């Protein structure tokens, strides 16, 4: 019973908005715009659940003196300070809030991003082994493209940069397209199952 109301809501809204796509009228457009705006407002309070969860998690760690509980203070402290500054001082350029963003948060974001250069190297070294025909194709194709992108490659064979680009544009595109068809059919089928109430993972349980 408790789950029938949400299921009915999904059914009605799902059909309504699938039809809305094909109707350009004023009413239909307004319905769409309003829903997008409402959706933002609806999702705001969910942040409270997330904050509750993270505070609980770290408070428990600190109370039980679990391994590394000191870092939970760092986490909670950083979150509290950043929130407090954001509320009191405003978020304009040049303020303390934006400075913390520019000189603490952003550098760590881009460093995490840049760490990928290392991970690509170690992953390639470990995995690009000619264990099977498929693995060999994978490794050769990566090999050719990498060589084609640096000056040495062009010096070895002038056609290499062109070949590496062709591989990106032709075979790569063909395989992506094949996968995309499957994704399109699969996601449309899943959406339909949600609308029809057959896919219920979002209700919390599969019952």
């Amino acid at each position: 019973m408790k789950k029938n109301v949400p299921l009915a809501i999904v059914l009605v809204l799902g059909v309504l908005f699938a039809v809305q796509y094909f109707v350009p009228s004023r009413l239909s457009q307004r319905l769409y715009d309003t829903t997008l705006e409402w959706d933002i407002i609806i999702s705001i309070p969910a942040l409270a659940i997330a904050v509750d969860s993270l505070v609980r998690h770290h408070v428990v760690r600190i109370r039980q003196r679990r391994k590394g509980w000191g870092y939970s203070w760092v986490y909670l402290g950083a979150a509290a300070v950043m929130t407090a500054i954001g509320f009191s001082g405003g978020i304009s350029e040049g303020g303390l809030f934006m400075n913390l963003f520019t000189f603490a948060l952003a550098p760590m974001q881009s460093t995490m991003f840049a760490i990928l250069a290392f991970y690509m190297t170690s992953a390639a070294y470990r995995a690009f082994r000619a264990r099977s025909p498929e693995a060999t194709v994978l490794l050769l194709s990566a090999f050719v493209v990498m060589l084609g992108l640096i000056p040495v490659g062009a010096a070895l064979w002038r056609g290499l940069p062109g070949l590496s680009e062709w591989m990106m544009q032709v075979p790569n595109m063909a395989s992506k397209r094949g996968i995309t068809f499957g994704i399109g059919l699969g996601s449309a089928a899943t959406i339909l199952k949600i609308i029809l109430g057959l896919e219920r993972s979002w209700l919390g349980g599969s019952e």
Partner: protein
Amino acid sequence: MTRATGPIALALLLALAGPLGAAPAPPGDARAYDTPDDQGGSITVEWRLSPDDAGTRLAGYEVHRAAGDTGRFQPVGQVPRGNTAYNDGEAADGIDYRYRVAAVDADGAASAPAEAGPARAREQWFKAGKANVLVATALFVAMVLVFLERARRGRLFIRRLAGLDAVEEAVGRATEMGRPILYCLGIGLLDYISTLAALNILGQVARKTAEYGTPLVVPTCEPIVHTVAREVVKESYAAKGRPDLFSDDMVYFVTSDQMGYAAALSGIMARERPATNLFMGYYAAEALVLAESGAATGAIQIAGTDQITQLPFFITACDFTLMGEELYAASAYLSQEPLLVGTIKAQDFGKVLIILLVAVGSLAALAFRSDVFSGWFGIK
């Protein structure tokens, strides 16, 4: 000599005549019509370029409008040279408008106007340009319904997915080693299909961990997904009769920052040393950060995503990867709901249909040398 001077003089005269004040040549073939597939309130005016458009003399075109048969022409807008259309978004529905389009040069001199209209703006109730999408949608819905009905009547065959055995094995391995399983739902929102599939698989994995008493760790990245994931795990433990094993600490929110989440998971993997890492759902660049940090700890890793750009990295760094549609199929298969198998059949039928249509369309296009077929699939 004398014979040659005549034409040269004439040419000079013609060349000078342009810049020296004469109005530019008018645009041609103007027409006005209700803008299609819209909510009304708009009329489109089209014309052919003025012959003077190619030079640098022309500034652009000015569009004037008059309401009804007797209204006075008022300027409504202008567009720079090189344009052949103007969208009048200020037209009231149901009123006849007439239009005039004139070419204007840099000094403001206008050509004789080209007339168009009358035209009337109307609100449409169907997007004619999306008819192909409507057909595709209707066809697909019908296919799914038919196969659902067939699934209800009897068992349909679906081949066993290699990835499913890998998931079960990985859960078993963690149990044997007495180490936790890390389940990562990605950074997507709840309404991403990959997130829903990941939640579905999480439910099945949680049932197994409840049964065997294997520790489970689910750090989340999105508030609403977090909320649902917590319920999914809680109910799975309840369903297996082990609500005592569930703790609030299993599913916890970390941060919604993409790279912050990756940093936190790297730390968790290094410290808690899970025996098995499952990465299911929507991923962006952090995919390889997660998979390589996990590989360094020696964990068995299984990934599944419909993000094609991240698949190459999961394939290289994980032990098994569910690619695109396989992720959805795995989630349907694991739930062991016979009806869900029906939709997989419908998807397969869709694939056959796509191949046939592309083949027939290509052959026809080549045989009749016509773009009609690709045109119909194309959307402006």
